[in-house]
């Protein structure tokens, strides 16, 4: 029977633990897959895939525009806006686009119907192909404050039977929550450091709060005791794979090379991790 749960979100809490390393390489070792880069503030997946045949979709939000002939300076919109995006000077209404949350409230509430909306671009989605992987990257314009609409656009397509890897942003706040919203499974990447374990604890809380099935992959593993592994043991969290701390791997990744495509050793490693994840998802 064809698999229906196919979307895996890769997250970590702490930055730099290996989300992109894992999501990019897992996407490559599957027969075919979709890779979605939801780290819209600092997207990196595209640097590895170097996708071709790129189409660009702008992402915009609706911003109010006032018809000055209809505006009678009643102040209703200014009083309504909870974000203080509007100011009235005499009968001239000023709209502050970067502060506006595009809620549409002023448009609805204007007693003179003087407000309409226009699109304002805040970022884009780029779609391309890299071998067996369809690559979707979300990119937020520098200066914008919220990438949530871009993540929503990235993940807007209806559920697909194709295996999908979502490369999440760091942290555990609204951007991450938006990225895991449609995930069938959450893969937490953990590094063996004090900070790494502290932030692993946070995303562990997050995925349980949102009732997502989850498991851990340990990255940058050394011979010594691994505090992230200890954390997993203490909390009975399944560990589906261990990626060693390895200069060769680090060097390839630093140079935006995809290890699973360059090296048989890593192809085998990431394939076994993917198999373990799919088995876990079937449980």
């Amino acid at each position, binding site marked *: 029977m064809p698999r229906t749960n196919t979307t895996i979100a890769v997250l970590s809490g702490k930055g730099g633990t290996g989300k992109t390393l894992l999501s990019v390489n897992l996407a490559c070792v599957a027969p075919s897959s979709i890779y979605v880069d939801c780290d819209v503030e600092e997207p990196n997946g595209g640097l590895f895939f170097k996708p071709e045949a790129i189409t660009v979709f702008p992402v915009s939000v609706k911003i109010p525009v006032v018809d000055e002939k209809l505006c009678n300076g009643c102040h209703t919109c200014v009083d309504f806006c909870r974000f203080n995006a509007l100011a009235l000077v005499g009968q001239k209404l000023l709209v502050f686009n970067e502060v506006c949350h595009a809620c549409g409230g002023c448009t609805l509430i204007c007693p003179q119907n003087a407000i309409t909306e226009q699109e304002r671009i805040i970022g884009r989605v780029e779609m391309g192909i890299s071998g067996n992987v369809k690559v979707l990257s979300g990119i937020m314009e520098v200066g914008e404050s919220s990438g949530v609409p871009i993540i929503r656009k990235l993940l807007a397509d209806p559920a697909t039977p194709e295996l999908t890897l979502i490369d999440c942003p760091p942290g555990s706040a609204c951007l991450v929550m938006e990225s895991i919203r449609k995930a069938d499974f959450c893969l937490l990447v953990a590094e063996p450091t004090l900070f790494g374990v502290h932030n692993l604890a946070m995303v562990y809380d997050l995925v349980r709060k949102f009732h997502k099935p989850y498991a851990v992959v340990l990255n940058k593993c050394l011979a010594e005791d691994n505090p992230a592994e200890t954390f997993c043991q203490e909390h009975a969290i399944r560990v589906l794979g261990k990626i060693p701390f390895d200069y060769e791997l680090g060097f390839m990744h630093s140079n*935006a090379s995809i290890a699973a495509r360059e090296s048989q050793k890593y192809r085998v490693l990431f394939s076994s991790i993917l198999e373990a994840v799919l088995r876990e998802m079937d449980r």
Partner: protein
Amino acid sequence: MKQLLILSGKGGTGKTTVASAFIKLSHAKAFADCDVDAPNLHLVTSGLSTATCTDYMGMQKAVVDTGLCIGCDRCRKHCRFTAIQNHVEHYEVNPYDCEGCGVCVAVCPVGAVSLQPAKAGVLKLFCTADTVFSTAQLEMGSGTSGKLVTEVKKQMVNQSAGKAPLAIIDGSPGIGCPVIASLNQVDLVLIVAEPSVSGISDMRRILEAADRFQVPTAVCINKYDTDMRHSDEIENLCLETGVAFTGRIPFDPAAVRAINCGKSIVDVDCPAGDAVRNVYGNTLRLLEERSGR
């Protein structure tokens, strides 16, 4: 009070590692962790007393009074953030999606929807006789991290009341709202860069962000010896664009061990510690020269 903010663009480059070292070296009387989403600075700060905690109330959130609700669906239809769902005859607002805009309150014909205060995090203040450490933890899934960052800085400034000439602020990754908020009133931003393709790409974006807000910026490289070619590329980029370069720190297992024991890298004798002392000296000199206040 001069404010030095440590940012990176890319996560995991070593902001907290550098910030904690700077705090030690400067004997800073005021410091803050503005990575309110994933704060780590307290893990490498010794001698912390009990924190004074204050609830941080973010944007108000809409709540539906099911007793008054007539099921007309106007609230759900008008919500731009898909925050209202119809759950089998009763309407519910998802507080994680609600942005507190008030449209649902305005369109409800029977006044069944109202905006209520919502806790979005906790502000923490650690005070000793002469130091102030301000930090916070955002509730997971929350937005408005920018406003909480502002509260963290305000708390630090208010509590140090002119007793601290220099404040060191550990920032967050990315270029979004918490970073923008942390840039307010900062005298110098130090970007900790990672020598990799991703690290350089992300560094360019954070440089652009800092430039937009007209904050003087400097760059240093952490773990520079993991990739000499990219380290050189970063230094050349700084030369070309006129961004100050304040030094390089090597990858150092002794430094990693120190951090894992909750110490700063200048608490132990190691190459990274020596290098960060050099970066610190260069950065502070720049702060003296560049600060406009």
